[in-house]
Structures are given as C-alpha cells and as structure tokens.
C-alpha cells in the first residue's frame, strides 16, 4: 500500500495529465447528438453569442458592399423564378390562382455572426434563436446555396452544422439525370468542395452539372442549390460514382441566411412515427 502511494506520488503529474486527457476525450469522442455535446453547445451559445455579435456589428461595416451585391444577385434570381410562374393573359400578367395551394415552407431572415471554415468540425452561428421559433433540425440557406442544418439554439442564437462539417449528410439530386445521392464532406475536401456519393454509374454526369436538394426529410424545399460538379470518378467494381462538387455557397463570405421553417413538419413526423 505504502509503495503504491509512493508510486502515485512520484508520477502524480502524469496521472493528472491522464485524468485531464480523459475528460477531453469524453467530449471529443462522444457523438454530436450526445448529452455532453448538446449541453456544451447550449451553454457555450449563451456565453459566446454576445461577444460574436458585438464583433460582427463592428466588422459588418467592412463588407457591406459585397453583402449588398450578394443580396442583389439573390433578388434578381428570385424575380426570375417569379416571372416564370406568371402567365400572360390578354393584356396583363397574372399568377394562376390555385385553391388547393398549401404553403409548406416559411423563411426567416438571420445574420451570420461567426463562422469557421478551416477545421474539420466547422460551425456557423446565427443571430436568431428560440425567441424567433428557430429550433434544432431546421435547414439554413445562404444567398447562393444551402449552408447547413441547425443543431442547437439558445434564446437569441443558433448553431448551424454547415456542409463543411465531417458529420454532415444530406440527400441530393443530380439535376440532369434526376438520380439521388448523398452529399458528404470527406477528408479530401476543403471548404470550397464536397463529395456526392451513391449516384448510380449509368447516370450521365457532366462537369458543371447542378446538384440540388431532394427535400426528402423536410429540412429544405426541393431544388435548393447545393453545388456544381467538379470531377467525376468511376470506382472500379462498384455501381456508384464518386462525384466531387464545387459548393455553390462561398463559406469565406456568408453574411445573410434564411432559416427554413417547414410548416408541415409535425404532420410529417407524426406519419413517420405511426409507421414505426
């Protein structure tokens, strides 16, 4: 016993080191949805949100012009979409009136107050939270393409898990061939690219083709831009292609985002739970 105590005393700093590393590893290797991660994110949200917001209030002035440019382009694209919906009858443009029309998605504007893009587990923080009905598991769209999915929110701030996070998975469609795939962020990707897997190899995929969201889990509307095909790789002995894409959204300059609120989410989830 005495020897054991002496041993521990002699190597006390090493044991302390192991103890600290153990605590770190519990955080590091617990999954993103675990209790540790969620409570960590929720408490850190409250502490850091205010500081990041103050800092972005100052730095916001420096990129106002590029921000305005992004919004102008987005506006023009939306106008284009709207024009396609209208038809010319006699001497005025009218939108077709559809009595069965049901709105499924609502959009809430938010500002990005902090974003990291250089690590493997990047994150984006936005300045809307539970007070604005922003919850975990909602889609977030930037001005050019999708950003990611919300993970945890406090009263005024929300964390977003962007496409450039190693745990990110989303179902997407190759626009031309309409075949499904999954977008992931692999080890070989940096913040400008991502990888689409599970597109069957009989689909004709060309460089520059559009990859859009499928909208299968109700997070995003169908057809939101994800990226453009950068390279296509045929894996020998496999029936699927490995497609690398250029992300539509530029993660070095995200300032304005829209949070997607799926009004029919409850109904969809109720249906899913009934099936199980």
């Amino acid at each position: 016993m005495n020897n054991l105590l002496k041993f521990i005393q002699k190597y006390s700093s090493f044991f302390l080191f192991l103890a600290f590393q153990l605590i770190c590893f519990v955080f590091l290797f617990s999954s993103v949805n675990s209790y540790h991660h969620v409570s960590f994110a929720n408490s850190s949200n409250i502490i850091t949100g205010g500081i990041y917001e103050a800092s972005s209030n100052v730095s916001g002035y420096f990129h106002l012009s590029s921000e305005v440019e992004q919004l102008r382009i987005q506006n023009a694209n939306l106008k284009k979409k709207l024009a396609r919906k209208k038809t010319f009858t006699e001497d005025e443009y009218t939108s077709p009136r559809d009595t069965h029309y049901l709105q499924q998605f609502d959009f809430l504007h938010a500002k990005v107050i902090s974003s990291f893009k250089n690590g493997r587990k990047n994150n984006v923080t936005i300045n809307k939270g539970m007070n604005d009905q922003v919850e975990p598991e909602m889609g977030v769209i930037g001005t050019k393409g999708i950003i990611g999915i919300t993970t945890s929110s406090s009263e005024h701030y929300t964390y977003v898990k962007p496409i450039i996070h190693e745990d990110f998975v989303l179902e997407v469609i190759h626009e031309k061939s309409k075949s499904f795939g999954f977008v992931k962020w692999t080890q070989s990707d940096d913040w400008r690219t991502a990888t689409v897997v599970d597109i069957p190899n009989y689909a004709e995929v060309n460089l520059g083709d559009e990859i859009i969201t499928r909208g299968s889990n109700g997070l995003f509307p169908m057809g939101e831009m994800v990226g453009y095909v950068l390279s296509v790789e045929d894996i020998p002995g496999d029936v699927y292609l490995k497609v690398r894409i250029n992300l539509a959204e530029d993660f070095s300059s995200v300032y304005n985002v829209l949070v997607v609120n799926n009004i029919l989410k409850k109904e969809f989830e109720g249906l899913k739970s009934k099936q199980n």
Partner: protein
Amino acid sequence: MNPIVKYLLQIIVLILLQVLVVDQISLGYASQFIIPSVYFLFVLMLPLTISNGVLMLLAFLIGMMVDVFKSTPGLNASAMVMLGYFRPYLLKLIEPREGFDVLKTPSIYSMRKSIYLGYVSLASMVFHLWYFTLEVMRFSDFHLILLKTLCSSIISVLLIILAQYLTVKRK
C-alpha cells in the same frame, strides 16, 4: 498591477485575439494547411516556479474556453493539457548551462533570443502536432498532419514573436 488581474487580462486578450482575429485570417487555398493558434502563449508565459498540477489545470481551463468559442469540445483543451504536461521537459531540454533565472517569467527579453525561439518553436510543434492528430484522426493521413503542423507552427511562432515585441515591456 496585481498579478492575478494581470494574468486574467492576458487570458482574455489572448482568447479574443485567437477567436476574433487569428481564426478569421483567410489565405485562400493555403488556409487549409495554415491554421495558426497563438493563445497557448499564455502557458509559455507562466512563471518557472509554478507546479505541474496548476499549470495543467490552467491549460485545461483555457483550452476549454477556446473550445467554447469554436464549439469543438475537448480539442483545444486536450492540446493545451498536452503542452502543459510537456512544458517542464521542454524547458529542461533547452536550459542553458548557467540555468534560468527562476524569478523572471519566460519572455523574449528575459531569455537569450535563440533559446526563446527554440522554446516557442518546440512548444508550438507539440501543440499543433497533437491538435491536428486529434482533428484529422487518421494515421493514413500522417503526411497531412505533419504538413499542417509544420505550416501552422511557422506562422504561429512568427505571430507570437511579433506579439512579444508589441506587448512585453523592455526591462
């Protein structure tokens, strides 16, 4: 100034410098290899007489604080504890024959410049090597870990030396 107030101020300034300035530096294509950290300078600046336990505890707490800002639970804390554990060994490794003046805190003015540079570079290598090993988490990408460590360490050391000249008063 009261030393505790001084150290608290140092912690706050270094963490804010890290998350609001250094982490926002964008170098285009190179920024996937150059991810510098400077806040570990705090551990290097602590007095030589500090005990190992207190050193590691402080390192852990500051690492956790940076993790809170970057929402990477455990990553920075683990790297900081690693650095805290190795600091006494690093100091022993680079100790000149006449020994250090234990009453002074390690800075570029209290040590010989070449020794201080060695101290900061070794510490930076230890910190970044562990940091990127945990982040990449695949030994098949070992060359990637080494490349990231090397690039980030060089930039970090430059920033730290610069910070020393800008802040520490000549005595």
